[in-house]
């Protein structure tokens, strides 16, 4: 029983990380109508930034702030340099460019930091014991902060002018343009928010798995996309739900030693089956195709 509770709490906090990444995917997909393949690699860049500043200052808060700044700059420049010229081009072209950007980031970081994984202990928050249940504080912190960020983001989108403009652009880009929305600016803001969330996710991810390599972003990236699809792409509560669900599933499967090596395969299998049965996800809206 104690083990089940621990597994579920761990799963929820891992799911929180996935949910943060999935939010970036889902927002960019909803507003720019493209799959940002390099989103997972922003996490990797955030991880390396935390590593560098942890070694330089030793203060996790300063490292996290710098990671957020670097990731935001990276997200914005990525959008301006690689994706903006392709606005209006075929989706295939945008997708291939995104893959190229992802590959470029991975190669660059490998050349800068070398192929061997780096280890960084961001902060040791200890564990809490409630009865027989042992819960690590970092998991609880991750979960709480994730929920707070989700609520703040939902409020931002619902209440602020920029958030409403984002909704308008995701609904109909041309109509939003006619109504005076600065579409390019909104898309850049979306990328910036996505990159910021990825930076936060990289901090939480390092709290869980303190090892940084140049491909560390790709696996959580794909899994977060799976989470976004499970929840219904384009839907913010969906991304959170999908992320938490996927995190719990992963932790449950990982707790059985016979199934553990196949966990990734099972998660991808879930993605394929889900896309076959219900491509719109749990909370996604159905879209009819028009000529």
């Amino acid at each position, binding site marked *: 029983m104690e083990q089940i509770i621990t597994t579920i709490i761990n799963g929820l906090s891992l799911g929180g990380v996935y949910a943060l990444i999935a939010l970036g995917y889902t927002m960019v997909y909803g507003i720019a109508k493209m*799959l940002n393949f390099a989103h997972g690699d922003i996490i990797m860049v955030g991880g390396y930034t935390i590593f560098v500043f942890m070694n330089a200052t030793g203060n996790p808060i300063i490292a996290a702030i710098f990671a957020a700044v670097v990731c935001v700059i990276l997200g914005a420049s990525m959008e301006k340099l690689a994706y903006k010229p*392709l606005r*209006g081009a075929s989706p295939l072209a945008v997708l291939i460019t995104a*893959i190229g*950007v992802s590959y470029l980031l991975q190669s660059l970081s*490998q050349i800068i930091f070398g192929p061997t994984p780096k280890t960084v202990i961001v902060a040791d928050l200890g564990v809490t014991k409630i009865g027989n249940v042992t819960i690590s504080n970092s998991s609880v912190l991750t979960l709480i902060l994730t929920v707070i960020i989700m609520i703040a983001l939902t409020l931002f989108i619902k209440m602020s002018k920029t958030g409403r403009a984002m909704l308008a652009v995701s609904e109909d880009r041309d109509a939003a343009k006619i109504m005076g929305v600065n579409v390019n600016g909104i898309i850049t803001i979306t990328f910036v928010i996505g990159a910021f969330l990825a930076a936060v996710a990289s901090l939480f991810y390092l709290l869980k798995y303190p090892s940084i390599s140049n491909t560390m972003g790709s696996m959580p990236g794909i899994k977060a996309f799976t989470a976004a699809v499970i929840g219904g792409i384009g839907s913010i509560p969906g991304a959170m739900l999908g992320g938490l669900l996927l995190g719990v599933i992963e932790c449950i499967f990982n707790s059985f030693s016979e199934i553990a090596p196949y966990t990734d395969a099972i998660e*991808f299998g879930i993605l394929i089956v889900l*896309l*076959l049965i219900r491509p719109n996800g749990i909370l996604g809206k159905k879209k009819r195709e028009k000529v």
Partner: protein
Amino acid sequence: MTFGDITKKLKSVKWSHYIAYIVIIVFTVICMLSGNLKRTDIYLLEKIGISIILAVSLNFIVGFLGELSLGHAGFMCIGAYLGGKVSSMLVGSMGNGILTLIISVIVGGIFAALAGFVIGLPALRLKGDYLAIVTLAFGQIALIIFQNSNYETFGGAFGLDTPRYDYNSLYIIIFVFAIITIAAFQNVIRSKHGRAITAIRDNEIAAKATGVPVTQYKLFTFVMAAFFAGVAGVLYSYTQSKVQCTHFDYNYSIEILVMVVLGGMGSLNGSIAAAALITFLNEKLATVLTGNLAVLQNIFYSLVLILIVIYSNAPAFKNIREKYNFKKFKSLIMRKRDPGYISDDEGSWDRIPTKIKMDELLSVDISVQSDKDGSTSDSTGGDENE
């Protein structure tokens, strides 16, 4: 038949359709005649042949169907493991001969095609980004399954032991398979099926409305491309004494994609040239760039992907693209005019076939105008044309 007839016939042959075969055959014959090649050169030749098969088959999905497959290495992995297993089982009874090779190639290809069928099924409902992710997930699943397999069946993490074919003839066999692959894809692409597939790429809804069975053609594309990727995998297993599944990772799929993009999506000859070039560069750069510098190669690939795609697709570069494109360059060299291109200072209409010419062909009598006064005939020609 006189000599003139023969030259006439030779002139009427569309050489651009056969240039790939000719180049490959001539190249192979030169390699054969040059005698004792070094082991490293033989490896390079084998790799080039395999890359050509992979690039051409991926181009069929990316360039002609217009969908992105990131699991091409996964299809190859299935072919390599199952075909390699068959060949290692048959070697004992049938020997390491051409028959064993053909049987294992067919088996590996069929299993990869089955996987292509399974992946093609979601392709019917999904497209674009979703499909790319599904193919990526498929490639990862294939890797994980083979990595965690039993030691007895597929070798697990140690890799599968496969027979190595004779050094002096395997590259010839691989090039023969490359030619078969190119011929198969070219024939499909130039048939009505190929036109249907490109119609789906250009506008799926319009294609559906015209009566193209979109479902069948999408499945067909995936199955056919997967089959040849599987064939490439089996051939790869013959070049190695041990098949390691780490070879077929995501990066390898990207490398094949780079070949397709560099050669030009929708151009088979381009894919062939780019596959040969990139494999050659890979091999040669690996000796120069060692250690950390080896990553420079990946940076080069990613920049190639980004820059080529942006240049050839960005709306901002449309004018430049139309001004300096390969077709125009080619027509400049070949001294052939591109009939679709009319320059701004072109005053006369007589160079492009107008209705007047059709009337002449149909022997309608309009010679009164065309003999005396050029300008009137031109204007009438223009009017009729409109």
